[in-house]
């Protein structure tokens, strides 16, 4: 009897001790290296998972800087099963400690595997200063899918392309969906009424309305980080320029007066807008204060004909598309102090909440597909495709 008590007590104390120890370890485990395109992946082994669970775990981890090796070569051994529900554990082979073990309930096996991948990322990657990494496994993307002759619809899907569903039934040219941060709502362009107009569409209610349908071009909506303002391109004053308005389309203000502007995006602080423009026949990236003010060019040496900028949520990076012979995804520090790095072939980059993974499209016109890229290791994977040419993805964050 007494023996049993002691054994049980010992197990209990060990559990508590392990829990305490984990907190300290996490900080020392592996600080995330952030060298654009040159970071070595974190080596892990994966065993016990089958079918969709294995597919999801491999996808999620690969596009967040992990790669897969045999258990002997792995720094982290990930094991578990997906028999009915996902259960999994992670062991650090360097410190010889179990980082965590967990089981998952509810939703679907895919969602459970995404949740396990999120837990692995947060247990293994720690930002400088000990802040947890932002998780992305259960986030959504929006994008357009169109037929070669033009008409298409706006789609939403899991970020790996699973569970795609059309949210429009316009059978018209559609373009550039943009999420309202933290909300089930999108802005996008549709030619449903034979003109490129900007719509606000609540996914919660399924209802929508136009917020900009002026003469000429209304396109490229981008929502401010606090969700209260929308930047866009309007041509109603005689040239395609950057304008901002309130979420409902009111309080319209013109920010630029150049010949040909496109693709506004917001800094995470909400005080600056970055956009593509043409000056003296040359395509450039520029910034303008969101409240109005001087336009400043960004240095993009080595990345010809830049367009489609997107500012990372942590404020450090601007991803954009450059065009030499082909389109390429480029990333540069937002302060412009280091020249852009050309990473992979593709267009339309959009940052995930973690500020290291991008969704983008690539391939021939008429047969574009979406991919997800880790900008530090340059590892990328194709998403599942919806029928048609998939492009202009926007990552919900």
């Amino acid at each position, binding site marked *: 009897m007494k023996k049993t008590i002691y054994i049980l007590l010992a197990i209990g104390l060990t559990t508590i001790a392990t829990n305490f120890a984990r907190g300290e370890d996490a900080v020392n485990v592996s600080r995330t290296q952030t060298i654009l395109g040159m970071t070595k992946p974190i080596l892990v082994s994966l065993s016990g998972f089958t079918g969709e669970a294995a597919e999801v775990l491999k996808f999620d981890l690969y596009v967040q800087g992990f790669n897969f090796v045999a258990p002997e070569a792995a720094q982290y051994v990930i094991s578990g099963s997906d028999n009915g529900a996902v259960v999994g554990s992670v062991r650090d082979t360097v410190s010889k400690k179990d980082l965590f073990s967990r089981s998952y309930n509810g939703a679907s096996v895919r969602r459970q595997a995404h949740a396990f991948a999120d837990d692995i990322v947060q247990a293994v990657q720690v930002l400088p200063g000990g802040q947890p990494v932002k998780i992305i496994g259960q986030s959504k993307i929006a994008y357009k899918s169109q037929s070669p002759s033009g008409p298409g619809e706006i789609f939403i899907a899991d970020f790996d392309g699973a569970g795609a569903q059309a949210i429009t039934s316009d059978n018209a040219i559609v373009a550039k969906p943009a999420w309202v941060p933290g909300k089930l709502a999108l802005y996008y362009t549709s030619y449903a009424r034979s003109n490129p107009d900007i719509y606000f569409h609540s996914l919660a209610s399924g209802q929508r309305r*136009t917020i900009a349908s*002026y003469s000429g071009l209304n396109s490229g909506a981008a929502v401010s980080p606090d*969700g209260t303002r929308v930047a866009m391109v309007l041509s109603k004053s005689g040239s*395609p320029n950057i304008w901002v308005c309130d979420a409902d389309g009111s309080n319209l203000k013109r920010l630029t007066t150049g010949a040909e502007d496109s693709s506004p995006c917001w800094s995470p602080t909400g005080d600056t807008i970055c956009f593509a423009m043409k000056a003296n026949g040359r395509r450039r990236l520029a910034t303008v204060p969101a409240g109005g003010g001087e336009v400043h060019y960004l240095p993009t040496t080595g990345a010809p004909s830049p367009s489609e900028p997107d500012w990372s949520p942590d404020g450090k990076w601007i991803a954009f598309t450059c065009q030499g012979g082909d389109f390429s995804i480029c990333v540069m520090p937002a302060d412009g102090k280091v020249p852009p790095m050309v990473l992979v072939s593709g267009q339309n980059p959009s940052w995930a909440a973690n500020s290291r993974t991008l969704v983008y499209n690539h391939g021939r016109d008429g047969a574009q597909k979406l991919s997800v890229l880790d900008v530090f290791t340059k590892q990328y994977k194709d998403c599942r495709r919806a029928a048609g040419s998939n492009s202009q993805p926007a990552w919900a964050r």
Partner: protein
Amino acid sequence: MKINRLIFPLVIALAAMIVSTGCKHGYSKTTELKNPQRYIPGPGNERPETQQPQMPTPMPYDPNAGVGVVNVPHPEGPIGTTTNWNPVDMNQDRATLAANMVHFKFDSSVVVDNEQANVSAVAAFMSGDAAAKLLIEGHCDERGTEEYNRSLGERRALALREALNKAGVNADRIRTLSFGKDKPAEFGHDEAAWAKNRRGEFVVCRPK
């Protein structure tokens, strides 16, 4: 015996804790996944309801009828060249000025000299038919990104409007419509196809 009485509840509590945390199976915690909709913006990225910005009230949307879409009037009233007519409400005639389609150089919205004859012909037509309005469609080749080309196509249509305006056509009679690279005339991937796709088309609009 006394010790046992003290220790027993402790043991039971400890055992219960171990079972509940799943230690028996080697999995110490369980994560319950909830309503999938909750996760669209990503867990942990949502803000409390009180901090959510006020969004416009959605209007009824009927995808079949195309109604339920509400125009937001500009608070300062029409600016620049905003027109009070809409090609959607008019009879559109693509044939009359089809021969006067204008082509552009790569990545350029300049109306070149040898296209001036087409501009003059369109201007002459417009001055001879006072009731007619004009829709100018701007198009691009597949080189250049989508939104960049949407702006370039618009710039091309606007350049043609400016040229027609110089030739005496009131700008209020003209609307511009950019298709970017979404509506190519040719589907090829060579200069021959690209040259045909960099174009401005004139659609005559008359009241129904």
